[in-house]
């Protein structure tokens, strides 16, 4: 059970918190972390927009109105804007989100986005389980020690000693 590091990105894509807990990943310069946060923010939005759409009941429309079957198969013709109801997502009922977890040979990146758009990026060991508990605890600590801090300015870098202390203490207690 290894948590490498935590990154918090505000809703505009700016880096507001970065901390390393255990060595394992390469160290980057502050500038590189800012670039990484911005890049991830953009990629996160793109991954949501490339969600595959599945045609719904294509066979029934072709059966009832034979003329409509020619429309999608004609290349080059600008197809009329189809109403949204002709598509469904692979997991209907679940809102489409951006990237939630990414796996590589060396680490796993889990992204949790709050309702207000703040993103928590947690870098862990690929074998680690129960990442959800860790993330929700981090969110809880963030709410308690950052958001309830009267001196914290929204969307600005997090410099709250109590948050650091409790975060470190809790993660150390788990290992």
């Amino acid at each position: 059970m290894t948590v490498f590091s935590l990154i918090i990105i505000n809703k505009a894509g700016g880096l507001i918190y970065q901390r390393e807990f255990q060595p394992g990943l390469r160290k980057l310069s502050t500038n590189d972390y800012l670039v990484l946060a911005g890049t991830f923010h953009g990629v996160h939005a793109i991954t949501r927009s490339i969600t595959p759409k599945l045609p719904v009941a294509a066979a029934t429309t072709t059966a009832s109105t034979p003329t409509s079957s020619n429309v999608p198969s004609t290349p080059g013709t600008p197809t009329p804007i189809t109403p949204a109801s002709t598509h469904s997502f692979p997991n209907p009922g679940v809102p489409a989100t951006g990237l939630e977890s990414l796996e590589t040979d060396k680490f796993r990146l889990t992204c949790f986005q709050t309702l207000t758009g703040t993103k928590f990026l947690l870098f862990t060991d690929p074998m680690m389980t129960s990442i959800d508990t860790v993330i929700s605890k981090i969110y809880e600590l963030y709410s308690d020690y950052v958001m309830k801090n009267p001196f914290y300015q929204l969307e600005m870098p997090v410099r709250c000693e109590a948050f650091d202390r409790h975060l470190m203490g809790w993660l150390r207690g788990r290992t």
Partner: protein
Amino acid sequence: MSLPPAECIYKRRWVPRPSSITGKSSRPNSETSTTANALPPVLGQSARTTDDDAKLIFGTVFSLRNMVRKLGGEDDSFVTYRTSQYKLHYYETPTNIKFVMLTDTKSPSMRVALQQIYINLYVEYVVKNPLSPVEHPGGVGVNNELFEESLEQFVTRVLS
């Protein structure tokens, strides 16, 4: 920073059998295999959208790969990412050909499958074909019947 040439040389879309998306409530006549096979690869989307999708996917994969290399070292590469709706599998050959596969969220790791597609299908039928172009300017891409047929078989028989 200059980007390497990005050309989508092959794309193919599989539409799931109607029973798997809409459940048993759908009409039985929609099960006919002809609808499933005769579908153009871009069904439900105009050709322009799939071209844009290919570019977006390239951009995503490229950024993520660079991000992962920065953090994990030069020999690290990302294998897959998951959203609430789909999973993207990624395999890059030593010659920087990128194989990307999008599946539903429940599917297991496709790394071996993508590797097999590269070794057993792409190398066999496309690379070893003396008539196939090395570069693909203009976007004709992999226009190879044997490759497409065997890929179709591989995906429908082995993967599903």
